[in-house]
């Protein structure tokens, strides 16, 4: 199969409106969590979230008008605008703006979402109930369905290759990057824009995830302390919003045009738990097999992994199961690593971006390779279990980072692992 490298990055996150500002704040140990003030939360169990800092683009804020005309934004849910922003940034970063027909048909898009336009579906339901079907906007459906992130991006940039969208809950972003890399490896496209986008901060989503007992409810007065993966006081995840998109490119194609190469996608593994709709399998076997498959595909020894960007959502069950699965994986290593593998959960700072999580975390993994630094796990006051792994508490650490594993696990028992490697 052909080699696939990453040549462009784009993101909008609770830490900022772009890649570098997000990364700088992440490495500095800042949290994106705050009390929700945009709508009434007084009757909700969880009243906090990690919201994108809106603004005019200065001081790291996110300016949606820079990426989509206001009259077009009005027709779509925010997840599509986030996808447009992240995709536009990634294409600019890669210096890839195909205008020749041959280049356009060789460039595709695979941007997914976990729950898509659920906010707009709620609003339209209210309109239907109060005013009847004649008042439903013609833009209701094309502004809410998940594949319209890929659709809008392709239309805006003239990308006529494969146009696809992943929907695998919290594994969406990782699956999108892995699947899109396969399309490039197999020759269905030379370039793919891949990632995830999510805009879940609304009453319906907060109420729904709280009903599944997935959200943190004990830190409503101290939002920045709420996302605390591996800590004994963790009580659920904190919802985040945003998008992450990468440009994946066939290696020779990237070299031929002199593109900057961030990393190579060397491994991708997938598995299913076949256990429960929301709970991870108690033996962690699905997580283990996902990582194992990625390691096998990468042709590496597990002991060679320098950094693991964990799924680590700060839920009571999931964090420890993933930790045990990672210990089992590292236990398989033929070579003992010189220094203990570093594993952190960046969700401690960004919150959980659901379908966008795997994409922004793949980007963090790539930047860890670029800068030889691993981002921290915030709020790790008292780890709930002992582990030989270095969980990178509170502060970023400088270290050798050549090979990174990024995990994503979703509702329905859907697991994805990516392995990224330094090139050259």
């Amino acid at each position, binding site marked *: 199969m052909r080699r696939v490298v990453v040549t462009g990055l784009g993101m909008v996150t609770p830490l900022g409106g772009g890649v570098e500002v997000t990364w700088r704040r992440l490495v500095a140990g800042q949290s994106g969590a705050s009390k929700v003030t945009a709508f009434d939360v007084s009757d909700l169990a969880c009243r906090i979230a990690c919201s994108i800092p809106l603004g005019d683009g200065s001081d790291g804020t996110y300016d949606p008008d820079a990426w989509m*005309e*206001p*009259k077009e934004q009005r027709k779509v849910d925010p997840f599509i605008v986030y996808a447009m922003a992240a995709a536009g940034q990634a294409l600019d970063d890669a210096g890839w703006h195909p205008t020749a027909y041959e280049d356009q048909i060789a460039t595709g898009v695979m941007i997914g979402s976990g729950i898509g336009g659920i906010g707009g579906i709620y609003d339209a339901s209210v309109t239907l109930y109060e005013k009847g079907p*004649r*008042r439903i*906007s*013609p*833009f209701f459906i*094309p502004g809410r369905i998940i594949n319209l992130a890929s659709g809008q991006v392709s239309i805006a940039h003239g990308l006529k290759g494969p146009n696809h969208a992943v929907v695998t809950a919290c594994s969406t972003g990782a699956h999108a990057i892995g699947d899109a890399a396969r399309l490039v490896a197999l020759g269905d496209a030379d370039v793919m824009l891949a990632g995830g986008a999510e805009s879940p901060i609304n009453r319906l989503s907060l109420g729904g995830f709280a009903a599944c007992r997935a959200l943190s409810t004990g830190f409503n007065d101290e939002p920045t302390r709420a996302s605390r993966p591996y800590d004994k006081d963790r009580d659920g995840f904190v919802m985040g919003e945003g998008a992450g998109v990468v440009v994946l490119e066939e290696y020779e194609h990237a070299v031929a045009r002199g593109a900057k190469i961030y990393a190579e996608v060397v491994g991708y593994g997938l598995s299913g738990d076949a256990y429960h709709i929301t709970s991870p399998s108690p033996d962690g076997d699905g997580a283990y097999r996902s990582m194992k498959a990625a390691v096998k595909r990468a042709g590496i020894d597990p002991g060679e992994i320098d950094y693991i960007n964990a799924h680590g959502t700060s839920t009571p069950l999931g964090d420890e199961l993933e930790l045990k699965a990672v210990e089992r994986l590292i236990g398989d290593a033929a070579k003992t690593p010189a220094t203990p593998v570093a594993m952190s959960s960046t969700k401690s700072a960004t919150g959980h971006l659901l379908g966008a999580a795997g994409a922004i975390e793949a980007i963090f993994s790539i930047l860890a390779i670029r800068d030889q630094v691993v981002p921290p796990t915030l709020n790790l006051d008292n780890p709930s279990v002992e582990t030989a792994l270095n969980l990178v508490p509170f502060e970023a650490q400088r270290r050798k980072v050549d090979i990174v594993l990024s995990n994503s696990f979703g509702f329905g028992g859907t697991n994805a692992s990516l392995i990224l490697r330094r090139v050259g």
Partner: protein
Amino acid sequence: MSDIAERVKKIVVEHLGVEPEKVTEGANFIDDLGADSLDTVELVMAFEEEFNVEIPDDAAETIQTVGDAIKFLEKNSG
């Protein structure tokens, strides 16, 4: 300019994001103001809402310019 014409033009400017000067009575929504077929559906809905009238589909199809909308609403609203 009539009150109805003012209100129609305001809706067109808001929904299509065009400069007010371009919204003349002869302006065709699709050819001159950049609307697509879904935009015109939404415009008709906005007229219905603003003027509290029902515009049947066969009548909606005849509303292709700003002037068409003003004429229809002058005849059928209030």
